[in-house]
Protein backbone atom coordinates (compact mmCIF):
# COMPACT_ATOMS: atom_id res chain seq x y z
CA UNK A 1 0.00 0.00 0.00
CA UNK A 2 1.23 3.47 -0.90
CA UNK A 3 -0.11 6.50 0.91
CA UNK A 4 0.60 10.01 -0.25
CA UNK A 5 -0.27 12.91 2.06
CA UNK A 6 -0.31 16.50 0.92
CA UNK A 7 2.91 16.19 -1.08
CA UNK A 8 4.58 19.25 -2.50
CA UNK A 9 7.70 19.02 -4.60
CA UNK A 10 9.90 21.75 -6.04
CA UNK A 11 12.86 21.25 -8.35
CA UNK A 12 16.14 23.05 -7.66
CA UNK A 13 15.10 25.91 -9.98
CA UNK A 14 12.10 26.57 -7.66
CA UNK A 15 9.59 25.28 -10.17
CA UNK A 16 6.85 23.70 -8.06
CA UNK A 17 5.97 20.48 -9.90
CA UNK A 18 3.62 19.01 -7.29
CA UNK A 19 1.22 21.26 -5.42
CA UNK A 20 -0.37 19.29 -2.63
CA UNK A 21 -1.18 15.73 -3.67
CA UNK A 22 -2.96 13.19 -1.50
CA UNK A 23 -3.76 9.68 -2.66
CA UNK A 24 -4.08 6.14 -1.37
CA UNK A 25 -3.05 3.23 -3.58
CA UNK A 26 -4.29 -0.07 -2.19
CA UNK A 27 -2.72 -3.46 -2.81
CA UNK A 28 -4.03 -4.85 -6.07
CA UNK A 29 -5.09 -1.47 -7.47
CA UNK A 30 -4.67 -0.84 -11.16
CA UNK A 31 -4.24 2.86 -11.84
CA UNK A 32 -3.62 4.94 -14.93
CA UNK A 33 -2.25 8.43 -14.30
CA UNK A 34 -3.05 10.74 -17.17
CA UNK A 35 -2.55 14.42 -17.91
CA UNK A 36 -0.80 16.74 -20.33
CA UNK A 37 2.95 17.13 -20.75
CA UNK A 38 4.37 18.90 -17.73
CA UNK A 39 1.41 18.06 -15.46
CA UNK A 40 3.79 16.44 -12.93
CA UNK A 41 2.99 12.78 -13.62
CA UNK A 42 6.55 11.50 -13.85
CA UNK A 43 7.65 13.67 -10.92
CA UNK A 44 4.82 12.16 -8.90
CA UNK A 45 5.55 8.49 -9.59
CA UNK A 46 9.26 8.99 -8.88
CA UNK A 47 8.15 9.47 -5.27
CA UNK A 48 6.90 5.87 -5.06
CA UNK A 49 10.37 4.34 -4.91
CA UNK A 50 12.12 7.26 -3.25
CA UNK A 51 13.89 8.53 -6.38
CA UNK A 52 12.43 11.87 -5.37
CA UNK A 53 11.58 12.84 -1.79
CA UNK A 54 8.76 15.30 -1.07
CA UNK A 55 9.68 18.93 -0.26
CA UNK A 56 6.81 18.73 2.23
CA UNK A 57 4.22 16.07 3.05
CA UNK A 58 4.70 12.28 3.23
CA UNK A 59 4.91 9.25 1.00
CA UNK A 60 4.65 5.89 2.80
CA UNK A 61 5.24 2.54 1.15
CA UNK A 62 3.81 -0.27 3.28
CA UNK A 63 3.81 2.11 6.21
CA UNK A 64 7.46 3.17 5.84
CA UNK A 65 8.22 6.77 5.00
CA UNK A 66 10.35 7.04 1.85
CA UNK A 67 12.64 9.60 3.52
CA UNK A 68 13.58 7.02 6.16
CA UNK A 69 14.79 4.25 3.84
CA UNK A 70 16.90 3.75 0.70
CA UNK A 71 15.93 3.55 -2.95
CA UNK A 72 17.58 0.11 -3.08
CA UNK A 73 15.31 -1.20 -0.32
CA UNK A 74 12.21 0.35 -1.82
CA UNK A 75 13.06 -1.01 -5.27
CA UNK A 76 12.53 -4.56 -4.09
CA UNK A 77 8.85 -3.70 -3.56
CA UNK A 78 8.36 -1.04 -6.18
CA UNK A 79 9.71 -1.82 -9.66
CA UNK A 80 10.07 1.17 -11.94
CA UNK A 81 10.18 1.12 -15.75
CA UNK A 82 11.26 4.45 -17.23
CA UNK A 83 9.79 6.29 -20.19
CA UNK A 84 13.00 6.22 -22.19
CA UNK A 85 14.62 2.76 -22.05
CA UNK A 86 18.02 4.24 -22.85
CA UNK A 87 18.03 5.75 -19.36
CA UNK A 88 18.06 2.34 -17.76
CA UNK A 89 19.87 -0.04 -20.11
CA UNK A 90 23.62 -0.48 -19.84
CA UNK A 91 24.59 -4.17 -20.08
CA UNK A 92 26.34 -5.88 -22.96
CA UNK A 93 23.60 -8.41 -23.61
CA UNK A 94 19.87 -8.54 -23.07
CA UNK A 95 20.37 -11.52 -20.81
CA UNK A 96 22.86 -9.68 -18.56
CA UNK A 97 20.56 -6.69 -18.43
CA UNK A 98 17.69 -8.79 -17.08
CA UNK A 99 19.94 -10.73 -14.67
CA UNK A 100 21.56 -7.60 -13.20
CA UNK A 101 18.95 -6.69 -10.60
CA UNK A 102 18.37 -10.34 -9.71
CA UNK A 103 22.06 -10.71 -8.87
CA UNK A 104 21.95 -7.54 -6.76
CA UNK A 105 18.97 -8.82 -4.84
CA UNK A 106 20.99 -11.95 -4.09
CA UNK A 107 18.92 -14.58 -5.90
CA UNK A 108 20.68 -17.93 -6.44
CA UNK A 109 22.01 -18.86 -9.87
CA UNK A 110 19.29 -21.35 -10.69
CA UNK A 111 16.49 -18.90 -9.87
CA UNK A 112 18.21 -16.21 -11.93
CA UNK A 113 18.39 -18.45 -15.00
CA UNK A 114 14.78 -19.48 -14.57
CA UNK A 115 13.52 -15.92 -14.14
CA UNK A 116 15.59 -14.57 -17.04
CA UNK A 117 14.34 -17.29 -19.38
CA UNK A 118 10.77 -16.64 -18.29
CA UNK A 119 11.05 -12.86 -18.81
CA UNK A 120 12.72 -13.29 -22.23
CA UNK A 121 9.99 -15.61 -23.40
CA UNK A 122 7.20 -13.56 -21.96
CA UNK A 123 8.27 -10.43 -23.84
CA UNK A 124 9.23 -12.23 -27.08
CA UNK A 125 12.91 -11.47 -26.59
CA UNK A 126 14.37 -14.99 -26.51
CA UNK A 127 16.00 -14.61 -29.90
CA UNK A 128 17.91 -11.56 -28.58
CA UNK A 129 19.26 -13.26 -25.43
CA UNK A 130 22.91 -12.63 -26.41
CA UNK A 131 22.33 -9.42 -28.39
CA UNK A 132 23.40 -5.99 -27.14
CA UNK A 133 20.28 -4.03 -26.10
CA UNK A 134 21.62 -1.11 -28.12
CA UNK A 135 21.28 -2.99 -31.40
CA UNK A 136 17.56 -3.49 -30.85
CA UNK A 137 14.74 -1.31 -32.15
CA UNK A 138 13.16 1.34 -29.88
CA UNK A 139 10.14 -0.84 -29.16
CA UNK A 140 12.32 -3.86 -28.39
CA UNK A 141 14.56 -1.88 -26.00
CA UNK A 142 11.44 -0.78 -24.17
CA UNK A 143 10.54 -4.45 -23.72
CA UNK A 144 14.02 -5.27 -22.38
CA UNK A 145 13.60 -2.54 -19.75
CA UNK A 146 10.23 -4.00 -18.79
CA UNK A 147 11.57 -7.56 -18.71
CA UNK A 148 14.41 -6.57 -16.38
CA UNK A 149 11.92 -5.27 -13.81
CA UNK A 150 9.31 -8.02 -14.21
CA UNK A 151 12.02 -10.59 -13.56
CA UNK A 152 12.40 -9.66 -9.88
CA UNK A 153 8.63 -9.81 -9.38
CA UNK A 154 8.04 -6.64 -7.32
CA UNK A 155 4.74 -6.15 -5.46
CA UNK A 156 4.11 -2.88 -7.22
CA UNK A 157 4.97 -2.12 -10.80
CA UNK A 158 5.28 1.49 -11.93
CA UNK A 159 5.30 1.94 -15.69
CA UNK A 160 6.07 5.30 -17.29
CA UNK A 161 4.49 5.35 -20.76
CA UNK A 162 4.71 1.58 -21.32
CA UNK A 163 3.04 1.60 -24.75
CA UNK A 164 5.33 4.09 -26.52
CA UNK A 165 6.76 2.56 -29.69
CA UNK A 166 4.87 -0.69 -29.14
CA UNK A 167 2.83 -2.25 -31.89
CA UNK A 168 -0.70 -3.48 -31.42
CA UNK A 169 0.27 -7.05 -30.64
CA UNK A 170 2.75 -6.03 -27.95
CA UNK A 171 0.16 -3.73 -26.41
CA UNK A 172 -2.33 -6.59 -26.30
CA UNK A 173 0.28 -8.75 -24.58
CA UNK A 174 1.03 -6.02 -22.08
CA UNK A 175 -2.69 -5.64 -21.36
CA UNK A 176 -3.12 -9.38 -20.77
CA UNK A 177 -0.06 -9.39 -18.57
CA UNK A 178 -1.39 -6.54 -16.46
CA UNK A 179 -4.70 -8.39 -16.07
CA UNK A 180 -2.73 -11.46 -15.01
CA UNK A 181 -0.84 -9.41 -12.41
CA UNK A 182 -4.13 -8.20 -11.02
CA UNK A 183 -5.31 -11.75 -10.36
CA UNK A 184 -2.13 -12.13 -8.31
CA UNK A 185 -3.09 -9.01 -6.31
CA UNK A 186 -0.13 -7.05 -7.67
CA UNK A 187 -0.41 -3.29 -7.80
CA UNK A 188 0.11 -1.63 -11.18
CA UNK A 189 0.48 2.10 -11.71
CA UNK A 190 1.06 3.39 -15.21
CA UNK A 191 1.54 6.86 -16.57
CA UNK A 192 0.23 7.07 -20.09
CA UNK A 193 -1.11 9.29 -22.84
CA UNK A 194 -2.49 6.32 -24.68
CA UNK A 195 -6.25 6.82 -24.28
CA UNK A 196 -7.07 3.81 -26.44
CA UNK A 197 -4.94 1.57 -24.24
CA UNK A 198 -6.57 2.95 -21.09
CA UNK A 199 -10.04 2.45 -22.61
CA UNK A 200 -9.17 -1.20 -23.28
CA UNK A 201 -7.60 -1.81 -19.87
CA UNK A 202 -10.37 -0.17 -17.87
CA UNK A 203 -8.34 0.88 -14.78
CA UNK A 204 -8.99 3.50 -12.11
CA UNK A 205 -8.00 6.78 -13.77
CA UNK A 206 -6.29 9.68 -12.04
CA UNK A 207 -6.12 12.88 -13.99
CA UNK A 208 -3.38 15.38 -13.17
CA UNK A 209 -3.15 19.00 -14.20
CA UNK A 210 -0.59 21.60 -13.08
CA UNK A 211 0.82 19.52 -10.24
CA UNK A 212 -2.56 18.58 -8.79
CA UNK A 213 -5.04 15.73 -9.06
CA UNK A 214 -8.14 17.03 -10.79
CA UNK A 215 -10.11 13.79 -11.13
CA UNK A 216 -10.04 10.26 -9.75
CA UNK A 217 -12.56 7.65 -10.87
CA UNK A 218 -13.41 4.73 -13.15
CA UNK A 219 -12.23 4.86 -16.78
CA UNK A 220 -15.75 4.91 -18.19
CA UNK A 221 -16.63 8.09 -16.29
CA UNK A 222 -13.44 10.01 -16.83
CA UNK A 223 -12.72 9.05 -20.44
CA UNK A 224 -16.18 10.15 -21.56
CA UNK A 225 -16.05 13.55 -19.85
CA UNK A 226 -14.96 15.69 -22.77
CA UNK A 227 -14.77 18.95 -20.83
CA UNK A 228 -12.48 17.46 -18.19
CA UNK A 229 -10.27 15.76 -20.78
CA UNK A 230 -9.95 18.83 -22.94
CA UNK A 231 -8.57 20.80 -19.99
CA UNK A 232 -5.87 18.14 -19.71
CA UNK A 233 -5.06 18.09 -23.41
CA UNK A 234 -6.40 14.55 -23.79
CA UNK A 235 -8.69 13.52 -26.63
CA UNK A 236 -11.66 11.22 -26.08
CA UNK A 237 -11.11 7.59 -27.04
CA UNK A 238 -12.35 6.86 -30.58
CA UNK A 239 -15.43 4.96 -29.43
CA UNK A 240 -16.40 7.72 -26.99
CA UNK A 241 -15.99 10.28 -29.80
CA UNK A 242 -18.48 8.36 -31.91
CA UNK A 243 -21.02 8.12 -29.09
CA UNK A 244 -20.69 11.78 -28.14
CA UNK A 245 -21.93 12.55 -31.63
CA UNK A 246 -24.61 9.84 -31.56
CA UNK A 247 -26.06 11.08 -28.28
CA UNK A 248 -28.56 13.25 -30.19
CA UNK A 249 -30.22 9.98 -31.22
CA UNK A 250 -30.84 9.25 -27.53
CA UNK A 251 -27.95 6.78 -27.28
CA UNK A 252 -25.81 6.80 -24.11
CA UNK A 253 -22.60 8.83 -24.53
CA UNK A 254 -20.56 7.02 -21.86
CA UNK A 255 -19.32 4.10 -23.95
CA UNK A 256 -15.62 3.27 -24.39
CA UNK A 257 -15.80 -0.47 -25.07
CA UNK A 258 -16.09 -1.69 -28.66
CA UNK A 259 -18.38 -4.65 -27.86
CA UNK A 260 -20.74 -2.44 -25.91
CA UNK A 261 -20.62 -0.01 -28.83
CA UNK A 262 -21.55 -2.76 -31.29
CA UNK A 263 -24.49 -3.98 -29.20
CA UNK A 264 -25.83 -0.49 -28.60
CA UNK A 265 -25.78 0.38 -32.30
CA UNK A 266 -27.28 -2.96 -33.31
CA UNK A 267 -30.16 -2.45 -30.87
CA UNK A 268 -30.80 1.00 -32.31
CA UNK A 269 -30.62 -0.36 -35.86
CA UNK A 270 -33.18 -3.03 -34.99
CA UNK A 271 -35.47 -0.39 -33.51
CA UNK A 272 -35.30 1.48 -36.77
CA UNK A 273 -35.79 -1.79 -38.65
CA UNK A 274 -32.51 -1.29 -40.49
CA UNK A 275 -31.32 -4.74 -39.62
Amino acid at each position, binding site marked *: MITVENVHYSYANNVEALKGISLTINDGDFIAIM*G*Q*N*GAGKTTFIKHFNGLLKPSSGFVRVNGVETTKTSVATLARNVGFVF*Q*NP*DNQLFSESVEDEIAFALKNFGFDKETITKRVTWALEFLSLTQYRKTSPF*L*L*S*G*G*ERKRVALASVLAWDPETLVLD*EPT*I*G*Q*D*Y*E*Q*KEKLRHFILQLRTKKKTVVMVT*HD*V*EFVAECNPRVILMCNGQIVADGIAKDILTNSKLL*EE*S*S*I*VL*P*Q*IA*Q*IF*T*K*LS*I*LGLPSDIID*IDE*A*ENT*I*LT*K*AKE*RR*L*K
Partner: protein
Amino acid sequence: MSVISLSDLVYTYPGASKPSIDGVSLNIAKGEFVLITGPSGCGKTSLCRTFNGLIPRFYQGELKGQVFVAGQDIAGKQTFDVAKHVGLVFQNPENQLFALSVEKDVAFGLENLGMSREEMRKRVDWALNLVGIYDLRERSPHEVSGGQQQRVAIASVLAMQPEIIVLDEPTSFLDPLSAERIFEVIYKLNQEQGITVVLVEHRLDLTARYTNHLIVMDKGKICFEGNPREILCNEKVCQIGVGIPKATLLYKKLKTAGFDVNSQIPLSSAEFADQLLKVLNQ
Protein backbone atom coordinates in the same frame (compact mmCIF):
# COMPACT_ATOMS: atom_id res chain seq x y z
CA MET B 1 7.54 11.95 -60.62
CA SER B 2 9.15 9.92 -57.84
CA VAL B 3 11.08 11.83 -55.21
CA ILE B 4 12.07 8.64 -53.43
CA SER B 5 12.68 5.50 -55.38
CA LEU B 6 14.04 2.27 -53.91
CA SER B 7 14.78 -0.82 -55.93
CA ASP B 8 15.51 -4.29 -54.57
CA LEU B 9 16.86 -2.95 -51.32
CA VAL B 10 18.45 -5.46 -48.95
CA TYR B 11 20.23 -4.24 -45.84
CA THR B 12 21.95 -6.07 -42.98
CA TYR B 13 23.31 -4.31 -39.88
CA PRO B 14 26.91 -5.14 -38.98
CA GLY B 15 27.02 -8.34 -36.98
CA ALA B 16 23.35 -9.18 -37.62
CA SER B 17 22.50 -12.59 -39.05
CA LYS B 18 19.31 -11.57 -40.85
CA PRO B 19 18.67 -8.58 -43.11
CA SER B 20 16.54 -5.79 -41.60
CA ILE B 21 15.37 -4.72 -45.04
CA ASP B 22 14.71 -7.75 -47.19
CA GLY B 23 13.96 -6.90 -50.80
CA VAL B 24 12.07 -3.59 -50.78
CA SER B 25 11.11 -1.67 -53.89
CA LEU B 26 9.13 1.51 -53.46
CA ASN B 27 8.18 4.69 -55.28
CA ILE B 28 7.05 7.82 -53.50
CA ALA B 29 5.71 10.60 -55.70
CA LYS B 30 6.30 14.30 -55.11
CA GLY B 31 3.74 15.81 -52.74
CA GLU B 32 2.51 12.49 -51.35
CA PHE B 33 1.70 11.87 -47.68
CA VAL B 34 2.93 8.32 -47.11
CA LEU B 35 2.24 6.40 -43.91
CA ILE B 36 4.45 3.43 -43.00
CA THR B 37 3.34 1.03 -40.29
CA GLY B 38 4.06 -2.51 -39.11
CA PRO B 39 5.05 -4.42 -35.97
CA SER B 40 8.05 -3.21 -33.97
CA GLY B 41 11.31 -4.48 -35.45
CA CYS B 42 9.79 -4.85 -38.96
CA GLY B 43 12.33 -2.54 -40.60
CA LYS B 44 10.42 0.76 -40.71
CA THR B 45 13.13 2.77 -39.00
CA SER B 46 15.89 1.12 -41.04
CA LEU B 47 14.07 2.01 -44.23
CA CYS B 48 13.89 5.68 -43.18
CA ARG B 49 17.60 5.65 -42.48
CA THR B 50 18.31 4.79 -46.12
CA PHE B 51 16.47 7.92 -47.33
CA ASN B 52 19.27 10.25 -46.29
CA GLY B 53 22.16 7.82 -46.47
CA LEU B 54 22.55 7.25 -42.69
CA ILE B 55 22.34 3.67 -43.82
CA PRO B 56 24.91 2.63 -44.79
CA ARG B 57 27.30 5.54 -44.15
CA PHE B 58 26.73 5.97 -40.41
CA TYR B 59 25.39 2.54 -39.48
CA GLN B 60 27.79 0.65 -41.80
CA GLY B 61 26.63 -2.86 -42.66
CA GLU B 62 25.82 -4.18 -46.09
CA LEU B 63 23.41 -2.43 -48.46
CA LYS B 64 22.36 -3.88 -51.81
CA GLY B 65 20.04 -2.27 -54.30
CA GLN B 66 19.50 1.38 -55.16
CA VAL B 67 18.20 4.46 -53.40
CA PHE B 68 17.27 7.50 -55.48
CA VAL B 69 16.27 10.65 -53.64
CA ALA B 70 15.28 13.84 -55.48
CA GLY B 71 16.58 12.32 -58.70
CA GLN B 72 20.01 11.49 -57.31
CA ASP B 73 21.62 8.20 -56.51
CA ILE B 74 22.37 8.37 -52.79
CA ALA B 75 25.32 6.02 -53.07
CA GLY B 76 27.72 8.71 -54.28
CA LYS B 77 26.43 11.50 -52.04
CA GLN B 78 27.53 12.88 -48.69
CA THR B 79 24.93 13.09 -45.90
CA PHE B 80 25.06 16.92 -45.88
CA ASP B 81 24.21 16.99 -49.60
CA VAL B 82 21.21 14.78 -49.08
CA ALA B 83 20.15 16.72 -45.97
CA LYS B 84 19.23 19.69 -48.18
CA HIS B 85 16.49 17.56 -49.70
CA VAL B 86 15.45 15.28 -46.86
CA GLY B 87 14.80 16.20 -43.24
CA LEU B 88 14.65 13.33 -40.81
CA VAL B 89 12.99 13.45 -37.39
CA PHE B 90 14.23 10.58 -35.26
CA GLN B 91 12.26 8.36 -32.92
CA ASN B 92 14.28 9.40 -29.88
CA PRO B 93 14.71 13.19 -29.83
CA GLU B 94 17.70 12.98 -27.51
CA ASN B 95 19.62 11.49 -30.42
CA GLN B 96 19.39 14.67 -32.41
CA LEU B 97 19.48 17.53 -29.90
CA PHE B 98 22.80 18.94 -28.73
CA ALA B 99 22.85 22.76 -28.68
CA LEU B 100 22.78 24.98 -25.58
CA SER B 101 19.37 26.42 -26.31
CA VAL B 102 16.27 25.34 -28.16
CA GLU B 103 16.58 28.13 -30.72
CA LYS B 104 20.25 27.36 -31.38
CA ASP B 105 19.31 23.77 -32.06
CA VAL B 106 16.65 24.88 -34.51
CA ALA B 107 19.08 27.34 -36.14
CA PHE B 108 21.94 24.87 -36.47
CA GLY B 109 20.98 23.39 -39.84
CA LEU B 110 20.33 26.85 -41.27
CA GLU B 111 23.74 28.14 -40.14
CA ASN B 112 25.30 25.27 -42.01
CA LEU B 113 23.45 26.28 -45.17
CA GLY B 114 25.09 29.70 -44.83
CA MET B 115 21.80 31.57 -44.53
CA SER B 116 21.72 35.29 -43.65
CA ARG B 117 21.00 36.27 -40.05
CA GLU B 118 17.63 37.91 -40.75
CA GLU B 119 16.39 35.05 -42.86
CA MET B 120 17.54 32.62 -40.19
CA ARG B 121 15.71 34.57 -37.44
CA LYS B 122 12.54 34.48 -39.52
CA ARG B 123 12.75 30.78 -40.23
CA VAL B 124 13.55 29.84 -36.63
CA ASP B 125 10.65 31.88 -35.24
CA TRP B 126 8.32 30.47 -37.88
CA ALA B 127 9.25 26.88 -37.03
CA LEU B 128 9.10 27.44 -33.24
CA ASN B 129 5.64 28.98 -33.54
CA LEU B 130 4.42 26.25 -35.85
CA VAL B 131 5.04 23.52 -33.27
CA GLY B 132 4.08 25.73 -30.31
CA ILE B 133 7.40 26.09 -28.46
CA TYR B 134 8.29 29.73 -29.08
CA ASP B 135 8.21 30.31 -25.31
CA LEU B 136 10.86 27.65 -24.79
CA ARG B 137 13.37 29.14 -27.22
CA GLU B 138 15.94 30.09 -24.58
CA ARG B 139 15.71 26.89 -22.55
CA SER B 140 18.22 24.07 -22.84
CA PRO B 141 16.82 21.27 -25.01
CA HIS B 142 17.95 18.79 -22.37
CA GLU B 143 15.91 20.27 -19.54
CA VAL B 144 12.55 20.28 -21.32
CA SER B 145 10.22 17.24 -21.26
CA GLY B 146 10.38 14.34 -23.72
CA GLY B 147 7.33 15.66 -25.57
CA GLN B 148 8.80 19.13 -25.85
CA GLN B 149 12.10 17.69 -27.08
CA GLN B 150 10.17 16.03 -29.86
CA ARG B 151 8.75 19.40 -30.83
CA VAL B 152 12.26 20.88 -30.90
CA ALA B 153 13.41 18.07 -33.19
CA ILE B 154 10.44 18.62 -35.51
CA ALA B 155 11.02 22.40 -35.56
CA SER B 156 14.71 21.91 -36.46
CA VAL B 157 13.72 19.91 -39.50
CA LEU B 158 10.80 22.14 -40.53
CA ALA B 159 13.05 25.22 -40.35
CA MET B 160 15.17 23.75 -43.13
CA GLN B 161 12.06 23.59 -45.34
CA PRO B 162 13.24 20.44 -47.07
CA GLU B 163 11.38 18.96 -50.05
CA ILE B 164 10.90 15.71 -48.15
CA ILE B 165 10.21 15.27 -44.45
CA VAL B 166 10.64 11.85 -42.91
CA LEU B 167 9.22 11.44 -39.39
CA ASP B 168 9.79 8.30 -37.34
CA GLU B 169 7.11 8.14 -34.62
CA PRO B 170 7.63 11.87 -34.08
CA THR B 171 5.01 12.43 -31.38
CA SER B 172 5.25 9.31 -29.22
CA PHE B 173 6.06 11.30 -26.06
CA LEU B 174 3.42 13.96 -26.69
CA ASP B 175 -0.06 14.01 -25.18
CA PRO B 176 -2.75 13.10 -27.74
CA LEU B 177 -4.06 16.60 -28.32
CA SER B 178 -0.56 18.02 -28.88
CA ALA B 179 0.21 15.05 -31.15
CA GLU B 180 -2.89 15.75 -33.19
CA ARG B 181 -1.91 19.42 -33.53
CA ILE B 182 1.55 18.44 -34.81
CA PHE B 183 0.05 16.04 -37.34
CA GLU B 184 -2.30 18.81 -38.49
CA VAL B 185 0.66 21.18 -38.97
CA ILE B 186 2.52 18.57 -41.01
CA TYR B 187 -0.56 17.75 -43.07
CA LYS B 188 -1.09 21.44 -43.77
CA LEU B 189 2.51 21.85 -44.98
CA ASN B 190 1.98 18.83 -47.19
CA GLN B 191 -1.28 20.17 -48.66
CA GLU B 192 -0.33 23.83 -49.01
CA GLN B 193 3.35 23.68 -49.89
CA GLY B 194 3.51 20.29 -51.56
CA ILE B 195 6.18 18.98 -49.18
CA THR B 196 6.45 15.22 -49.45
CA VAL B 197 5.84 13.54 -46.10
CA VAL B 198 6.86 10.05 -45.01
CA LEU B 199 5.46 9.25 -41.57
CA VAL B 200 6.20 6.12 -39.55
CA GLU B 201 3.44 5.44 -37.00
CA HIS B 202 1.75 2.68 -35.03
CA ARG B 203 -1.18 4.85 -34.07
CA LEU B 204 -3.37 4.68 -37.13
CA ASP B 205 -6.31 6.00 -35.11
CA LEU B 206 -4.59 9.37 -35.24
CA THR B 207 -2.98 9.27 -38.66
CA ALA B 208 -4.70 7.00 -41.22
CA ARG B 209 -6.99 9.85 -42.25
CA TYR B 210 -4.11 11.85 -43.74
CA THR B 211 -2.91 9.34 -46.28
CA ASN B 212 -3.98 7.56 -49.40
CA HIS B 213 -0.68 5.70 -49.66
CA LEU B 214 -0.33 3.28 -46.78
CA ILE B 215 2.59 0.87 -46.51
CA VAL B 216 2.45 -2.10 -44.13
CA MET B 217 5.80 -3.77 -43.43
CA ASP B 218 6.56 -7.07 -41.73
CA LYS B 219 9.87 -8.87 -41.32
CA GLY B 220 11.80 -6.48 -43.56
CA LYS B 221 9.35 -6.64 -46.44
CA ILE B 222 6.47 -4.54 -47.71
CA CYS B 223 3.40 -6.77 -47.45
CA PHE B 224 0.62 -4.30 -48.23
CA GLU B 225 0.69 -1.03 -50.11
CA GLY B 226 -2.11 1.20 -51.33
CA ASN B 227 -5.42 2.68 -50.22
CA PRO B 228 -5.74 2.54 -46.41
CA ARG B 229 -9.50 1.94 -46.55
CA GLU B 230 -9.03 -1.31 -48.40
CA ILE B 231 -5.88 -2.43 -46.58
CA LEU B 232 -7.22 -1.85 -43.07
CA CYS B 233 -10.28 -4.00 -43.78
CA ASN B 234 -8.10 -6.94 -44.78
CA GLU B 235 -8.12 -9.71 -42.18
CA LYS B 236 -4.46 -10.51 -42.84
CA VAL B 237 -3.40 -7.02 -41.80
CA CYS B 238 -4.92 -7.61 -38.34
CA GLN B 239 -2.96 -10.83 -38.06
CA ILE B 240 0.35 -9.04 -38.68
CA GLY B 241 -0.46 -7.04 -35.56
CA VAL B 242 -1.35 -3.66 -37.06
CA GLY B 243 -3.59 -1.53 -34.81
CA ILE B 244 -6.69 -0.96 -36.92
CA PRO B 245 -8.51 2.32 -36.09
CA LYS B 246 -11.46 1.65 -33.75
CA ALA B 247 -13.90 3.24 -36.23
CA THR B 248 -12.79 0.86 -38.99
CA LEU B 249 -13.01 -2.07 -36.57
CA LEU B 250 -16.51 -1.13 -35.42
CA TYR B 251 -17.65 -0.74 -39.03
CA LYS B 252 -16.41 -4.27 -39.76
CA LYS B 253 -18.00 -5.75 -36.63
CA LEU B 254 -21.37 -4.20 -37.45
CA LYS B 255 -21.20 -5.46 -41.00
CA THR B 256 -20.39 -8.99 -39.82
CA ALA B 257 -23.36 -8.80 -37.42
CA GLY B 258 -25.64 -7.95 -40.36
CA PHE B 259 -25.83 -4.15 -40.12
CA ASP B 260 -24.13 -2.69 -43.15
CA VAL B 261 -23.69 1.06 -42.82
CA ASN B 262 -23.12 0.85 -46.55
CA SER B 263 -20.71 3.71 -46.86
CA GLN B 264 -17.07 4.30 -47.60
CA ILE B 265 -14.98 2.31 -45.09
CA PRO B 266 -14.27 4.84 -42.29
CA LEU B 267 -10.77 5.72 -41.04
CA SER B 268 -11.68 8.08 -38.21
CA SER B 269 -14.36 8.31 -35.56
CA ALA B 270 -15.62 11.67 -36.84
CA GLU B 271 -16.14 10.23 -40.29
CA PHE B 272 -17.90 7.12 -38.98
CA ALA B 273 -20.09 9.06 -36.52
CA ASP B 274 -21.41 11.18 -39.42
CA GLN B 275 -22.13 8.08 -41.49
CA LEU B 276 -23.93 6.41 -38.59
CA LEU B 277 -25.98 9.53 -37.86
CA LYS B 278 -27.15 9.65 -41.44
CA VAL B 279 -28.16 6.00 -41.55
CA LEU B 280 -29.74 5.80 -38.09
CA ASN B 281 -31.65 9.05 -38.66
CA GLN B 282 -33.44 7.82 -41.78
